[in-house]
């Protein structure tokens, strides 16, 4: 009996000693230092993500309690013509924006990647829209696109062209939003390309020059293969960004005319925070999540295949 007590006392002593040893140890500080972010991860990210999944399986409309309705929201999505339009619009936006943005950014980077006087000024000019708030940028453009006497149409008038009602024309509104968005972000991709171009070894150009390669051959056989990692990165980032477009739509068109510029995030926002149909909005959000997840996974899978690596 006494011996037993003794060992248990010893055990708790041992525990106490270990605890004391743990406090102040490297591992202790490690956990302590990462704990705010890990806690944040659980409360702000993982929890809400799981809750989103759950909510997408309910019929919650702000008032009352959520009822579990299984996959009904997803079924409703398949027969919701507005959702079809929204998906199509988001796709049009991406297909319009991404190639323009990437090709323009690469061309500008190639132009600005020389040490000639004045390059800093040009780089800054192209980068300024990146820093501006999307709201300010969209407001200016809404004004520039004004129908009767707006800046663009006044310029067109100089050439005796009758300017259209840019943002009220179903055919033109999306194109206008795409151009404005491409201009806003082309600077960011340009900077990434500039960084990549700087890392291409000079010796490769010298060698290819000696082999008789001209400028365009150098671009296709030296520059482009060497910067594929960056091309790929900007591609993925721009695609994912284009899936989440919201501010310019909200300010410039409000999804209109009709539903012609209504995109995924706008539809989520409208369904949740204007119609308070949280269950249905969550289902749409989950679809957005799955689309972005696919692109992110594709990035990992494909990157090894077609991205050039030295060695």
């Amino acid at each position, binding site marked *: 009996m006494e011996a037993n007590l003794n060992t248990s006392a010893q055990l708790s002593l041992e525990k106490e000693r270990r605890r004391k040893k743990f406090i102040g140890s490297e591992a202790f500080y490690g956990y302590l230092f990462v704990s705010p972010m890990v806690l944040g991860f659980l409360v702000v990210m993982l929890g809400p993500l799981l809750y989103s999944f759950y909510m997408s399986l309910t019929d919650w409309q702000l008032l009352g309690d959520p009822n579990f309705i299984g996959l009904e929201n997803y079924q409703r999505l398949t027969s919701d013509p507005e959702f079809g339009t929204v998906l199509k619009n988001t796709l049009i936006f991406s297909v319009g924006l991404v190639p323009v943005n990437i090709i323009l950014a690469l061309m500008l980077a190639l132009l600005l990647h020389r040490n000639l006087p004045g390059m800093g000024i040009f780089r800054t*000019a192209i980068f300024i829209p990146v820093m501006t708030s999307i709201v300010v940028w969209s407001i200016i453009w809404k004004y520039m696109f004004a129908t009767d006497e707006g800046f663009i149409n006044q310029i067109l008038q100089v050439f005796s062209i009758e300017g259209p009602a840019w943002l009220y024309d179903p055919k033109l509104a999306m194109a206008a939003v795409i151009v404005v968005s491409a201009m806003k972000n082309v600077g960011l991709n340009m900077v990434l390309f500039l960084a990549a171009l700087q890392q291409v070894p000079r010796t490769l150009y010298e060698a290819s020059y000696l082999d008789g390669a001209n400028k365009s051959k150098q671009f296709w056989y030296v520059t482009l293969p060497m910067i594929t990692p960056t091309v790929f990165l900007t591609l993925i980032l721009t695609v994912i960004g284009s899936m989440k477009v919201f501010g310019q739509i909200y300010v410039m068109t409000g999804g209109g005319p009709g539903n012609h510029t209504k995109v995924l995030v706008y539809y989520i926002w409208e369904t949740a925070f204007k119609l308070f149909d949280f269950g249905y909005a969550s289902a749409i959000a989950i679809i957005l999540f799955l689309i972005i997840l696919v692109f992110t996974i594709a990035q990992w899978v494909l990157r090894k295949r077609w991205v050039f690596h030295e060695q």
Partner: protein
Amino acid sequence: MNNRKKKSFGTKVIFYGILTLVSLIMIVPFLWMINTSFKDATKIFTFQWIPDPFRWQNYLDVLEKTPFHLFYFNSIYIAILVTIGTIFFGSLAGYAFAKLSFRGSSILFLCLLSTMMIPVEVITIPLFLLMRDLGLVNTHIPLIGIPILGPAGVFGVFVMRQFFLLVPKELEEAAKLDGCSYFRIYWSIMLPLAKPAIATLTIFTFLTSWNEFYEPLIYINSKELMTLPLALALFTDEVGTKWELLMSASVMATVPLLIVFFFAQKQFIEGVSMTGGK
């Protein structure tokens, strides 16, 4: 020789011509914004390169007719708190992930990294409900807390970790022998070393917070709590678009950022390249 020189002069002209054109296209919207901000309300759609009459009054009108100083103050203090929070928690966790060994650290880091893939737009609804249940809707707390602890904060952890990995081990070994605590090593050795990374992250975080629109739109209802982008966006509906005032307000919302950028551009562009290029 002469011929070649001529050709290179010609290409230079075309080269500079293209760049000037592109830059102008990028700048013209801003010039037009500034131009309109000085126009008389009746001349809003009259094409004038220099407004006549030239009205400074628009700026005063904005300040008088809207609580613009509040929008300014809200935007500034939120951006400062978000930046400080992101730098502090990001560097603390970044230091731990880079330099301290503890069980599960790589798995925890992977978990954090994976959240960068979750678009905030996807989790906004449950976050809104959480904030509502905590009574935090229509306060600034979601606008400060969510960026620090969410994907933007994780980006901070990632940037800082990458930087701390490059710091040679000898530096902290010496400090450890001198009996420094881990927090002391972090605070007096690691943080001062990380100045370039911190500078980049500061500009990046400040910029993002200053321009954030979606979160304020969802969490803020009261006018006096609005940040600049939100106030500007809602301003258009409320006053039936008084373009001259809207443009003065936009100029005031943009200029501070351009000033900051002007002084920090080298660091910023390098920083973007540093964090995005790899």
